[in-house]
């Protein structure tokens, strides 16, 4: 979850998100270096009193400042492509979760386990407890096992919604009439929050997503409790 005055990315709960954070830091470092260099050059122009009236061309420096940016771009491109293919790797998920977006709540189905289904509505601010997170807490959280690959299928019932958890690096659009699939892996327990990320009407800001990541024995216990009730 974002804490107060959080400027950067949330700490990751997934190895892929960790890699995304590393790539972000790497690319940002390169950009900062370029910006400082260009900013310095522009700033020093204020204090320059020399003019070369007969300047026509400088072949060597023009070659350098064409080749060097190409090399810098290679330093950005290779990690980027590596990460792109890493995100698409095939693995074998152990749990499948279906998430359907409605106006204006999410409903979830665990079809692996005798069809557990429930809706997840945001808790309104006036019903929130003292330590509740405004616009983020929901009545029924998605309980999922940690340290397991999880497949999620996202769709929508009416208009386009988007299911996202920033701490896991997951964002999947839910389009009516279409199933979009992605995988993720949580490597620590806790609560992970997200909010609908595709404009879907008046209460688009008021349909959050909460994942409760638990050890697998607690997950099995939760499943059997839900099956019995």
């Amino acid at each position, binding site marked *: *979850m974002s804490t107060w005055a*959080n400027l950067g990315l949330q*700490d990751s709960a997934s190895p892929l998100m960790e890699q995304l954070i590393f790539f972000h830091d790497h690319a940002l470092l390169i950009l900062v270096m370029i910006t400082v260099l260009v900013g310095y050059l522009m700033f020093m122009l204020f204090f320059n009193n020399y003019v070369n009236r007969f300047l026509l061309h400088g072949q060597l420096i023009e070659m350098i400042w064409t080749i060097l940016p190409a090399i810098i771009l290679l330093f950005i491109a290779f990690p980027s492509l590596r990460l792109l293919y890493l995100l698409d790797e095939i693995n074998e998920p152990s749990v499948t979760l279906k998430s359907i977006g409605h106006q204006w709540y999410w409903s979830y189905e665990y079809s692996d386990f005798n069809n557990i289904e429930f809706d997840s509505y945001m808790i309104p601010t006036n019903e929130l407890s003292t330590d509740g997170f*405004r616009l983020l807490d929901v009545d029924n959280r998605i309980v999922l096992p940690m340290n397991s690959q999880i497949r999620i299928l996202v769709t929508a019932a009416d208009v386009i919604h988007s299911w996202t958890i920033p701490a896991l690096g997951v964002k999947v659009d839910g389009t009516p009439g279409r199933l979009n699939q992605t995988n993720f892996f949580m490597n620590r327990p806790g609560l992970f929050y997200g909010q609908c990320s595709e404009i879907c009407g008046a209460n688009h800001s008021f349909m959050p997503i909460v994942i409760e990541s638990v050890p697998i024995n607690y997950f099995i216990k939760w499943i059997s409790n839900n099956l019995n009730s």
Partner: protein
Amino acid sequence: MNSLRCAGCRLPGAAVAVIAGAAKSVGGAHRARSADLRLMRRFTHHDGTRVMSGKREVVGYGVNGSPNYIDCSDFPFPAIRYREVTPEICAMREKEQGDWKKLSLDEKKSLYRHSFCQTYAEFQYFMPEWKLAIGITLWAISFAMLISLVSNVAIYDDLPITYDDEHRQAQLRRIIQLQMNPITGLSSKWDYSQNKWK
């Protein structure tokens, strides 16, 4: 034609190469000099410049053949003298042919001011526009602050109840108990073994 330049004035510049040999002598070459001046006039590309320079002397090639006057440190010697020819300046030009030590300071200054509009110090000095720019910027900032103050007081609703101290403390306690952002974020600053901030 004679009124266009004094006898002692020289004509530098590439276009003058055409009139080689004719410029030095005075009396008999008067007609030749007129012809040469007409020839030189034909070499300029904009006849309007000749009209604008009026009675002022052309002393250079100018911008691609069009004589101009501009005070610029990149191109120091303009192609047109700044002021028109007068008998006083003709006399001083005669004196200028001799030893410069014999010229007084005032004569040097008037010779300069005849040929040029401003000195280097005058045209390189920065204009005081920055004062107006800073003034307008500060005015705009204060106007924006006024609008935001009025909006906050008169237009916007109160903040939700979750912004008060009791709620925020409770939320902070819950954030720490849930170990949110435990790597570099908020929970990483809490010492769990001693139950206080690091």
